[in-house]
């Protein structure tokens, strides 16, 4: 298969899957079979692109010229390759999990759920492989809209309210700020193609760079940089598989991925570092990391706590981009992968706990670890990985980020990273500790207490194992990302 057709197939497969899912809507087993097959095919297709990228190839494909001089164009580069691999790979795991979760909880409208999920994945692939900013924006919006029915899946008042916040913030930031920044860039640079070293270098300077960066950073609402993070906790009204794959992996990662793309390929890290406009962004990211961690500690609802933890962790990636050094970019990008595995594990566990016991609050989980040892064990692994302790993958993201901070001469940021790790211990560790060693409240709820359905457990096992494996084998990711650090100013 040629790389060009692989790129187009990566978008076409999930879309075709969506159509088939709709056709088989009345036969759940066949429908879920289609979902799994689609996910596996997609991952396989994405995998075929890897060797070429590793060898330095940058395959591209052009669909149609949407605006004069601005086609819908795809070009695969390391960052997008990594993002596509994570999203498509975890989709398989997540689909297994969804089947267990959606059936055990007797959710309604499951066909719509799987259709929207497939469309969301197609949009994610579009974002990952976008060759210019317009293409990225198109799929960015498609992702927002295709996930709206997923967020509001329950269809009750709370879902409507959550959906309102979700759509309101994401569309406000993207149309109000990001689109303006994109058209402005087009005006200034005359191109929107992602180019290593940036397209604004030599075309914009001083305050314009600063304003554009501000518009981009806050315009990419999916990166959930405070104060535009409210949509993420609001999105937690969705069923847990949605929170897991979309709001811990695809959607939020699409946000920070876009930030990375903008910093590396639109501005160019040299331009940012030389104008000094990245400084305030560093501080904003640091503030977001710390404040979100503090808020997470106050949340008793498990999913809300995880959501704020995500906001905090997304700040890491933005920080990596803001540092505008080669290690910073590599660390931030690596953190996209590491956090994805850790956080999806945590969400899977939260969903498994809900499925088995209908419990949603942290304070209710005391003693539950002894009843659901597997789930809580996996939770512990995910938590340790998020905190950044060996032997789990989360360590590497922080490692390179700290290197990047040193490279940029920002010692304070190393401290921020350390404090944030301590904070994440404070908000994550009580859950497994209470679970295993807490007393329990003595009167088991109306639901018989046991582990979640088997498909859920399989999914949890895979991602927890992933956290472990990434600690020992981070090298492929590092090799993939190395070209991004090209062309930078070493200290």
């Amino acid at each position, binding site marked *: 298969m040629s790389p060009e057709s692989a790129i187009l197939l990566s978008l076409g497969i999930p879309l075709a899957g969506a159509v088939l899912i709709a056709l088989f809507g009345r036969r759940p087993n066949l429908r879920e079979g289609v979902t799994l097959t689609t996910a596996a095919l997609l991952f396989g297709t994405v995998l075929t692109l890897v060797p070429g990228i590793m060898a330095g190839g940058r395959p591209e494909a052009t669909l149609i010229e949407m605006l*004069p001089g601005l086609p819908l164009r795809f070009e695969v580069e390391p960052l997008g390759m990594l993002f596509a691999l994570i999203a498509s790979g975890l989709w398989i795991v997540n689909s297994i999990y969804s089947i267990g979760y959606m059936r055990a909880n007797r959710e309604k409208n499951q066909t719509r759920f799987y259709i929207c999920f497939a469309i969301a994945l197609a949009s994610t692939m579009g974002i990952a492989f976008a060759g210019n900013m317009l293409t990225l924006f198109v799929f960015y919006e498609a992702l927002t809209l295709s996930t709206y029915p997923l967020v509001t899946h329950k269809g009750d008042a709370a879902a409507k309210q959550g959906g309102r916040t979700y759509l309101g913030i994401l*569309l406000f930031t993207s149309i109000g700020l990001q689109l303006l920044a994109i058209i402005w860039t087009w005006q200034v640079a005359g191109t929107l193609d992602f180019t290593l070293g940036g397209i604004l270098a030599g075309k914009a300077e001083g305050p314009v760079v600063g304003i554009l960066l501000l518009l981009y950073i806050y315009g990419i609402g999916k990166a959930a940089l405070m104060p535009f993070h409210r949509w993420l906790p609001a999105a937690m009204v969705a069923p847990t598989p949605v929170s897991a794959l979309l709001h811990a992996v695809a959607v939020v990662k699409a946000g920070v991925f876009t930030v990375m793309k903008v910093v590396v390929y639109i501005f160019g890290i040299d331009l940012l570092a030389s104008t000094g406009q990245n400084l305030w962004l560093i501080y904003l990211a640091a503030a977001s990391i710390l404040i979100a961690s503090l808020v997470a500690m106050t949340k008793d609802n498990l999913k809300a706590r995880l959501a704020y933890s995500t906001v905090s962790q997304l700040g890491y990636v933005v920080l990596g981009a803001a540092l505008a050094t080669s290690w910073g970019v590599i660390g931030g990008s690596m953190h996209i992968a590491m956090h994805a595995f850790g956080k999806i594990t945590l969400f899977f566990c939260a969903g498994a706990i809900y499925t088995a016991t209908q419990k949603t609050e942290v304070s209710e989980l005391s003693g539950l670890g002894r009843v659901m040892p597997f789930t809580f064990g996996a939770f512990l692994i995910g938590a340790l990985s998020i905190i950044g302790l060996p032997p789990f993958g989360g360590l590497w993201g922080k490692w390179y980020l700290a290197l990047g901070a040193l490279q940029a001469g920002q010692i304070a940021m190393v401290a921020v990273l350390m404090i944030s790790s301590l904070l994440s211990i404070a908000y994550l560790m009580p859950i497994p500790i209470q679970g295993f060693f807490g007393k329990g409240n003595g009167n088991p709820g109306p639901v018989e207490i046991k582990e979640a359905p088997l498909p859920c457990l399989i999914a949890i096992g895979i991602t927890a194992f992933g956290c472990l494996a990434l600690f020992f084998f981070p090298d492929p990711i590092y090799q993939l990302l190395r070209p991004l650090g090209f062309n930078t100013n070493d200290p």
Partner: protein
Amino acid sequence: MIATHLPALQIVVPLVSAPICLLLRRSGLAWALASIVSWAALACAALLLQQVLSSGPISYHLGGWAPPWGIEYRIDAVNGFVLLIVAAIGAVVMPYARVSVAHELPEEQHATFYTALLLCLTGLLGVTITGDAFNLFVFLEISSLSSYVLIALGRDRRALTAAFQYLVMGTIGATFIVIGVGLLYMVTGTLNMLDLAERLPPMSENRTVLAAFAFLTVGAGLKLALFPLHFWLPNAYAYAPSAVTAFLAATATKVSIYILLRFFFTVFGAANTLELGTLENLLIPLGVAAILVCSTVAIFQTDVKRMLAYSSVAQVGYIVLGIGFASTTGLTAAIVHLFNHAMTKGGLFLALGCVVLRLGSARLESLEGLGRRMPLTMFAFVLGGLSLIGVPLTAGFISKWMLVQAALEQDNRFLAAAVAAVILIGSLLAIVYIWRVVEVAYFRPAPEGDGEGEIAEAPLSMLIPTWFLIGASIYFGIDTSLTLGVAKRAAELLLGGGA
């Protein structure tokens, strides 16, 4: 033979068919004739545009009388494109009208309805095609008078006052236009637009010419519902029969905008009467006000038809804004939005017509639970709404992109950023008013008591036209070679002055 007389056929066929419709009396026959005529008009418009694009402007001398004495029909990229828009909407609305009209109007009025609709179509096509200023006024009156009748046919009694209100305002507008044309004739002695364009430059300081310019601007402004001259529009759209609302919303204001474009750039453009500053100072503030005020007002409407009507005024604001920039990009944006908005708003009003057919009203609260009961109609509405907001992969996005680009091209940096921000704020306001409908239709349970089975999906004869326009508003958001290409040519033509 036929090819050379296409410009005349474009007008004569619907004009002659209109009284025949009345004579046929039978509803079905009148509808069939009207539909066939509207399709013929579309074919005619498409052929004309193709001819213009391949071999330049067409000049047709009516009755063989050479201009400037005889009436000239003159088709270039600008009005060729507008002709296509009007004819296409006509051809989509006619088939749709049958069920909708049968439901909303008593049997004996059907033939009158189709007659009036055909006359209105004739008038709008005539305004667009003619190269003669007075002839333009005549066709404008044909379309206006027939549209007063069409609106008054609405079954709500308030349709009568709405029609009357429109009659008063429309007549003032038309009178202003004829006064403007009269003044021009007084000083130049000609009515042919090209001839006017040649004779006006030496007298650009002439007070009479300036007065004519002012009268024409205000007259056209009234007809196109330029904020703050828009007060007739929401009532007229809200109470007219559904098919009429869709037809007028997509065509009438667009043709009036064409009048403005033609006079500003072709007739006065060469004369340089038009200091570009004037245009900027007048149209940009009005456009901005229209976008902000009318989008906000739309949010508070309880009747969805009325809400979309206010949205139309806001969308006219975008077009006027594009004209106000008076740059190639600005005019391209304006003209492309003319097309895109016609498709989108036409589709939205057709979708609402389906709702009215089944529910009898378009009040917001009556839409409860409709997402489940009329899934195809409501999904069409949502897609149209997305285009109105300007989400990527819809036609609205292309318009917004071009407009913001035109705004950012302005020399005054501060003004540029402010106007670009207003355009985007308008989009955000559109999210609010569209999502009010979405939430009611999809998140509120259907009201108890009237039974699930009672309210079914609209018939195919209405769904297909609706989806045709909605599909067009998606298609032209992805493949823009036709729309942007023609709009750009038209914009260059207008700014080149004269021909």
